[in-house]
């Protein structure tokens, strides 16, 4: 039957189900299809820390939100236009985010008395009229899947499990997605289980055909490809981009990458990814604890590798003493903190930006550490390279602050030309110097020599005790300690001279209000700023990659605007640093809900400030 085709400029879909329903896989496949089709996109996986919470309960709900459009977009979207709810728990957990009039696809097979009771529904919301303000598509997805798979030599359970592919097929039809990628993916994934493979392919195709033939869907949607710069693209998550950035740092510096890591959510995927790339000379060491992980990384750096450790906030707390040792011994070290909600164990799978002050100050003594943050999933690649450049050039630990949203979220990435990537020069100390001094500094960078074991004539000892300027011998001299403390600070402060000034986006030049952010909030802030400009208001935007040291022009930028709004997913940590450093009365906007900002709420907050001028 012929269906009406409606053009849309953007859609936000959320797939929600039980942890065991395969919602992350479904979302990921839909994303790949959408990427291949050429839409711009942004994703937000949201899942519990528990691997399999009790089936059908609210804590067990896992979801994947995808925003795709025919134009350039910046966030995974505030509220879904379409919610796919595979069970009552998924409906209950997500309904509050669904705006009136949105499409709601519900798997009615799971709306049994028992499942409804599990989440406190007395009656089925599908039948009691409580969903009347949505466009409800009540479909028996499980039983339609099982029916479609009659005749396959698989168990009923395996047939039921293919319901996510039925749903994916239906949604793929609904939004005109190309299917070759998913078909090829299923063939690869189940290559060793041919019957399961055929069943999943059949379920996917049944979902598609159902869309074509049913009267439940009278409209099919089209979202045209977005305009992108010419080039080769792929979709990439923050954690994979970060791992690739580390591999690239090894290639661009000629240093072996040595990752010491202890598994922790949401950083473990970087360890998983890097462990696959041994052919680049990458060594990965799963240590006995966080402390050993950073210790091994630092030991490797002492030996002339680029030592890296990956973790989240609780791991940083444990690594603090070793980071201090890296400050004192002035060795390159990359410390990757994929931030999550804290304090303590907090909410391991939920995002937050609350480790900034820990990164800045979480060590004993005066222990300055450069801090940088990526602003989008793909940007994790460039941020990793930049962190490596600073660590190697200045012989210093560097903390890179990613977060759970960037780590698991994804976006299309235009692949860089490898030939254009920056070189990083290790500049090892040369053997055979007569008057070698391990703490004699480069006059420009204040970096000390990196003289690695095996270099004849440069034998020396380093450690956490204070060292005499130049010789590096143990020193308790008061004036020397004061000097060395200031030198270490000056070295880190001097990094600012090698970084680009902070760029301010102020197209009209008339803005009186600046929005300043850092890290993973870039997309939401930028989307809010666009909306505000569409209302005719002027607003300037800047986003910090370098948090320590700040770009040299930051003071000037802050003083160029009447008001500065600083949205952060913490209780005002950057705001505290800005006030302390620049005596500027910035206006914080803060939330710690474990979720990224919504563009709409930021729009409101910033407009209020503009309108109060």
């Amino acid at each position: 039957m012929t269906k009406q085709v409606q053009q849309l400029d953007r859609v936000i879909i959320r797939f929600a189900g039980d942890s065991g329903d395969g919602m992350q896989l479904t979302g990921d496949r839909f994303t790949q299809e959408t990427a291949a089709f050429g839409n711009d996109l942004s994703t937000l996986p949201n899942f519990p820390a528990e691997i399999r919470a009790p089936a059908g309960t609210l804590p067990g709900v896992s979801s994947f939100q995808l925003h795709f459009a025919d134009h350039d977009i910046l966030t995974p979207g505030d509220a879904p236009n379409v919610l796919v709810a595979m069970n009552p728990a998924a409906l209950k957990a997500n309904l509050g985010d669904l705006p009136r009039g949105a499409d709601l696809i519900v798997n009615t097979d799971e709306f049994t008395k028992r499942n409804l009771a599990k989440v406190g529904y007395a009656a089925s919301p599908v039948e009691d009229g409580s969903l009347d303000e949505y466009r409800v598509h009540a479909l028996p997805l499980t039983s339609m899947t099982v029916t479609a798979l009659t005749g396959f030599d698989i168990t009923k359970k395996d047939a039921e499990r293919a319901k996510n592919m039925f749903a994916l097929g239906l949604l793929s039809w609904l939004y005109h997605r190309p299917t070759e990628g998913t078909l090829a993916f299923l063939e690869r994934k189940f290559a060793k289980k041919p019957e399961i493979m055929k069943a999943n392919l059949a379920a996917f195709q049944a979902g598609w055909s159902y869309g074509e033939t049913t009267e439940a869907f009278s409209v099919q949607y089209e979202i045209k490809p977005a305009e992108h710069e010419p080039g080769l693209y792929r979709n990439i998550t923050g954690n994979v981009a970060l791992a690739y950035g580390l591999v690239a740092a090894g290639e661009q510096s000629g240093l072996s990458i040595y990752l010491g890591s202890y598994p922790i959510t949401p950083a473990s995927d970087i360890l998983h990814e890097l462990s696959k790339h041994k052919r680049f000379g990458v060594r990965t060491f799963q240590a006995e604890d966080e402390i050993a992980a950073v210790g091994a990384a630092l030991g490797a750096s002492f030996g002339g590798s680029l030592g890296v450790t990956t973790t989240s906030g609780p791991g940083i707390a444990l690594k603090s003493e070793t980071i201090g040792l890296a400050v004192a011994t002035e060795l390159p070290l990359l410390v990757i903190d994929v931030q999550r909600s804290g304090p303590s164990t907090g909410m391991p799978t939920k995002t937050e930006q609350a480790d900034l002050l820990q990164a800045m100050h979480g060590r004993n003594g005066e222990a300055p550490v450069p801090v940088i943050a990526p602003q989008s999933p793909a940007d994790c690649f460039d941020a990793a390279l930049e962190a490596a450049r600073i660590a190697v050039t200045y012989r210093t630990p560097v903390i890179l602050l990613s977060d759970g949203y960037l780590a698991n979220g994804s976006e299309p990435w235009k692949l860089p030309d490898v030939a254009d990537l920056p070189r990083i020069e290790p500049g090892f100390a040369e053997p055979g110097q007569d008057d070698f001094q391990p703490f004699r500094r480069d006059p420009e960078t204040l970096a000390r020599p990196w003289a690695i074991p095996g270099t004849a004539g440069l034998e020396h000892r380093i450690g956490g005790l204070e060292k005499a300027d130049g010789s590096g011998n143990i020193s308790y001299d008061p004036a020397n300690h004061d000097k060395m403390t200031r030198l270490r600070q000056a070295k880190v402060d001097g990094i600012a001279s090698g970084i680009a000034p902070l760029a301010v986006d102020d197209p009209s030049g008339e803005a009186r209000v600046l929005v300043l952010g850092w890290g993973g909030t870039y997309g939401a802030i930028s989307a809010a700023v666009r909306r505000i400009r569409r209302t005719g208001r002027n607003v300037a935007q800047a986003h910090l990659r370098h948090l320590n040291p700040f770009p040299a022009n930051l003071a000037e930028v802050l003083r160029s605007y009447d008001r500065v709004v600083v949205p952060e997913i913490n209780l005002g940590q950057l705001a505290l640093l800005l006030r302390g450093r620049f005596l500027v009365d910035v206006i914080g906007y803060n939330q710690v809900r474990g979720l990224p900002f919504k563009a709409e709420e930021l729009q409101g907050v910033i407009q209020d400030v503009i309108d109060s001028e």
Partner: protein
Amino acid sequence: MSENGAGGANGRANGANGSNGNGSGFAALSLVPKADGKQTMKDFKTDQEVRWCPGCGDYAILAAVQSFLPELGLRRENITFVSGIGCSSRFPYYMNTYGFHSIHGRAPAIATGLATSRPDLSVWVVTGDGDALSIGGNHLIHALRRNVNLKILLFNNRIYGLTKGQYSPTSEIGKITKSTPMGSLDSPFNPLSLAIGAEGTFVARTIDSDRKHLQSVLRQAAEHRGTSLVEIYQNCNIFNDNAFEPLKDASVRDDITIRLEHGEPIVFGADRQKALRRSPSGSFEVVNVADVPASEIAVHDAHNPDPSQAFALSRLDSPAFEHTPIGVFRSVDRPSYDEQLRAQVDEAIETQGRGDLAALLGSGDTWRID
């Protein structure tokens, strides 16, 4: 970039400047470049003033190590000493090699990173009973089970020295110290029992005052493939003086010291009149040589894959020093962690080819926009 472990040091540190031969017979050191000329003890001394208390056992150990290293004949720049915190951990400052005085308890972790990334280095860890067994216990046991190519010298003086005299995890129960005026309550670790339980492949004990024995144990430790743990009884003459006096007192030491030699019957005593016999329970008992047939006297087998004999020997040690074995308790061959890690990298390169960055970035589903 170098693939086989030289930390990417442009191949320079990758043994490229030294012979990689295995001429010395030290299998574990086959990748460490050899010195060109003959070395002496003086080559390993630094110009730093040694700051241990006069009379400290550490002096004897330092001299023993400095005079032993020329025997290995390794390039000085390819030797690294890594330490934690405590009196013993000042050791690297006095060795004219590369050295890293790190933080409390973490030396095995830091040394693991170094040893697993640089096969051309001989990496030594110097630690104490507090550093290794208290704050750093976790790293010690994991280094042992992994069998990383590290030589760990554990100076055991059964007291905290640098913090001025608190009891340590090897202090005897009831130890009166500043922090335990009514006596310590905790049972001590037996470091060798712990090391054997942690799957250690080389476990030995020696004494600071017996240079000849100490150096013979160091030699065997250096030759060993993987982690060597050498417990060195070391006297702290300030806070725990004479802790090992029975083992040093000429009038009694021969009667209580059991010198273990692989393949030899375990006989000891001033007149070699005593021996060890394995009892049915598996433990060792002391017997008079005259009272038992020679066939019942235990023969020391350090190479036995079954660790139970070495463990039983380790249990003979007691705070009262009734019978104390010294020497190599256990020395078994098992691939080291670092050589296996290297092999995986080599295999990946061999089977998949050297990594190509552009190909990696473009892996997975891609699309082109013209």
